[in-house]
């Protein structure tokens, strides 16, 4: 059975997260989105861990489900079209490390995955002696990431340690600001225990294939959601038995069970291109080189984005396809498509939200609509414009404006409002 897996999310106990990032919110949105395996996030936070113990119960080995009494109440508020979707949780937590190595300050984020609350507890008792676990669901530890990996291996032999959003300039394993140039530089003799890396929103598998040092690891994608509506922005597709070992086995071996990833168009990520937010300047790596890396407006160094950094570490040309390549599907969140079709700026506008829930009630969960429901079916459901947009999205025929220095990029189905209104007019003639 194919499962859509999203291991990296945050609870309401992390900084800058939505209050509805609780178990109920994750369950509700998980079903709307069509995600099957959701990381709990934040298991190091004592209050969130208490909530997990309170609201979850063991399901298949290494997986948890929402207690029946809670699930039944939420199911009542969901459209029948998504009722039967399965939701399982697996304990995960993102941890930030800050430490000095080789005369440089390193700042890395990593996701830990374990199969049981016993192991969560063992890890928490080790980490509480290193840093403050109570201030933030994503704690900051003054600890060498290699030592963090060692602690995970000691506490949870089948646990996984996944370097998160590895290309972001400040907090990625390969980040230009405070990262490393290779897995080995960071993890030394423990490097063989790194089985997978997370692409982050600003990179896609194709960009990662260009880096030879990543040949031995599995490329996975997660949402890093800070609100339940953002669950599954990116995700990994795994065809495995419904238990921890088989799902994690797909990730560690990168065998046939690992089917592929669901991706943002990488330009949409907020660190794809180079530039300066404050100076309103976006540049391609070539333009950055022409500027000598210095912002022509403020004369400070430009923030080097992911594309540039990949180029610096890559030994293979753009377009290279890895032998281990998996299926890659690009999506635009449904609410973003609907907002564009309506010609409104915000996905949270009332009209968009009404459209969103109506369409889900008719056609099923969001991932099915974006990935598998035939466009004819969407058209026949009274959504010809959406059908056309999804067709364009599935074939990659979209208009991209790259993000930079913390500014999200934009992905549009139409070139401009003129094309949009022309298309709508044509549609109404049909």
């Amino acid at each position, binding site marked *: 059975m194919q499962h859509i897996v999203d291991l990296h999310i945050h609870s309401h106990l992390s900084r800058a997260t939505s209050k509805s990032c609780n178990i109920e919110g994750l369950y509700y949105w998980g079903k709307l989105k069509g995600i099957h395996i959701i990381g709990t996030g934040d298991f190091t936070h004592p209050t969130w861990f208490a909530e997990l113990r309170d609201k979850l119960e063991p399901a298949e080995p290494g997986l948890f489900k929402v207690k029946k009494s809670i699930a039944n109440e939420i199911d009542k508020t969901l459209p029948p079209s998504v009722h039967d979707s399965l939701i399982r949780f697996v304990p995960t937590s993102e941890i930030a490390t800050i430490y000095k190595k080789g005369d440089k300050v390193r700042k890395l984020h990593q996701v830990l995955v374990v199969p049981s609350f016993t192991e969560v507890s063992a890890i928490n008792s080790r980490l509480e002696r290193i840093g403050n676990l109570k*201030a933030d669901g994503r704690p900051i530890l003054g600890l060498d990431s290699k030592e963090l990996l060692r602690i995970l291996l000691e506490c949870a032999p089948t646990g996984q340690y996944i370097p998160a959003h590895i290309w972001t300039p400040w907090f990625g394993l390969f980040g230009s600001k405070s990262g490393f140039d290779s897995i080995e530089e960071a993890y030394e003799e423990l490097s063989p225990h790194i089985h997978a890396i997370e692409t982050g929103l600003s990179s896609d598998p194709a960009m990662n294939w260009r880096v030879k040092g990543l040949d031995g690891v599995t490329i996975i994608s997660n949402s890093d959601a800070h609100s339940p509506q953002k669950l599954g922005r990116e995700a990994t597709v795994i065809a495995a038995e419904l238990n921890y070992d088989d799902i994690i086995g797909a990730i560690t071996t990168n065998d046939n069970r690992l089917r592929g990833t669901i991706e943002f168009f990488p330009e949409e990520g907020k660190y794809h291109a180079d530039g300066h937010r404050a100076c309103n300047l976006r540049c391609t790596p070539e333009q950055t080189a022409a500027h000598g890396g210095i912002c022509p407006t403020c004369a400070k160094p430009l923030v080097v984005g992911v594309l540039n950094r990949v180029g610096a570490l890559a030994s293979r040309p753009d377009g290279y396809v890895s032998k281990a390549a998996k299926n890659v599907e690009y999506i635009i969140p449904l609410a973003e498509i609907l907002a564009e079709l309506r010609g409104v700026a915000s996905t949270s506008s009332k009209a968009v939200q009404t459209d969103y829930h109506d369409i889900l009630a008719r056609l099923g969960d969001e991932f099915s609509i974006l990935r598998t429901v035939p466009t004819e079916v969407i058209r026949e459901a009274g959504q010809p414009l959406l059908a056309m947009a999804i067709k364009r999205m599935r074939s990659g025929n979209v208009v991209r404006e790259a993000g930079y220095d913390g500014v999200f990029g934009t992905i549009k189905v139409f070139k401009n409002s003129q094309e949009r209104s022309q298309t709508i007019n044509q549609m109404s003639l049909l």
Partner: protein
Amino acid sequence: MKPNSQQQKAICAPLGPVAIIAGPGTGKTKTLVERICYLQKNGAQPKSILALTFTKKAAEEMSERLKNRGANGLRVATFHSLCFDLLKEKQGAIPQFISEPERLVLLKNLPKPSALSGVSRRELSLLVSRAKNLAKESPEIRRLTDAYNAKLAEQNLCDFDDLLLQTHNLLKADAAWQNKIRQRFAHILVDEFQDTNLLQYQLLHLLNGSNSLFVIGDPQQSIYGFRGASGDIFGKFAQDFKQATQITLDINYRSCSNIVTIANSIYPQLPKLTAHNQEPGKAVITEVLNEFSEAAWVIKRIQQAIGGSDLLNAISDDSTSQHRSLRDFAVLYRSRSAARVLHKSFAESGIPMQIIGDGSPYDEPNVQTIVQLLAKIADESRQISINNMSHQQTFTFSKQFDPSTRPFNLAEQLISAFGFEPDDNLSQLLSVLVQFTSVKEATAYFDKIATNSFYDPRAEAVTLLTIHAAKGLEFPHVILIGAENGILPSKRGDIEEERRLFYVAVTRAKQQLDILHAQKRNGQPAELSSFAAAIDPYNLPHQIDASLTKDKLRAKKRQIKRAQTTLF
């Protein structure tokens, strides 16, 4: 590095009494270590050398340095560990030690004259300890000390001061034994000599048989008067050993030149330190609004220097200080009460930090109660002490619980039996208990963290500590908070000891020194410390924390709120 000519003179000083005045950063420990190597090279048996320090940590560090220099087999001890071993050798056994909580309870229960009625238990404990170390105390304290000693003897317990006191008395009473010990230690060296109290000084006299006595320290760093250290111990030494060799070390290898200049200007009448490092550092006095903006300023300063610790405040262009790491920073304060807001703000910020002198979260009273009762349930013979509960009561209470219950569930039962409000510390305790299947296992874990340091030595963190705890340490960037009259100098302290504290604080900094003072503290107007005000602003410029004036503060709050609502 080879010793400089002053250090060389000290290392090769003729046998006999030697007093070395070694200012901050002048290579004191190095000189002491080299002196020991010199003695050994010139025929001293390792076993005949005794090196004394004041803390276990200092003793360990010195042993390590000696080992690296190939000097093995000598005795490096604290006064307490030396006396412990001597007493054990003499008497075969040492009575059990009273624990600090038990000691406080004992002092509380002793009848007290009205003159001592308002004095806190902790303070009483300190005063009694001073009295036992031969400091001059009031007759009330003397009488209280006698009553306290009698109670200890009754229960066949002793405290750490008794180790010194009994050794002192025995050496004095038993000439044959004293002779034996004197012959054993032909060479005695004392580090941080300025911290010596009268009892320790008399012990030194009793141990000293051959006059090969080498003491080293800095009178300007004598800050333990409140514990009974005798402020003028170097003067006493000079009087008692008129033939002593005196050498001063005054080349500072620690701090940038302007920080040394600032240190010198605290004692204009004394000989100056010379900076070896001619690079100018950064030293500034900053005026902040109040204790809250003080804490915010410190946190922002550190976040800037490490380039942001969070996605929300990733800072792109403070490239100059990219090489600073968390352990390069220390925040110093005169007393813990002046740092309450700072501690709280740091805890909320999530920035990795260590408060030196703070116990683990397991010392927090409610957590401690649960942990102790779990231990009692695991092993009913275990002696525990819980506020407002007698031994018998804890025994009867713990009997109501089934020891085969999982420790997590037991703890939940105990928390509800005591009616404790759930808080972060208790949920952290529960979070840790989930992993254990038996209460014995859980108890073994708590015993382990109680005997070892709670903090993992691998942790990198900003250090928060009192000036007292900072003595002997150095940091690239030191931030001193609460530089205000009434705090530093404190209201009650001896002004010269307070000045020495300020001196110690300033001389901890290698490259950067920030001194903070608030316009208002605890709602009361505050004024810049007279010590800081006396320093020429040319060397220590003043600035005002502009970003935290009221209007900007409000704007900032709005900005943070906006940042937090645009979720990613």
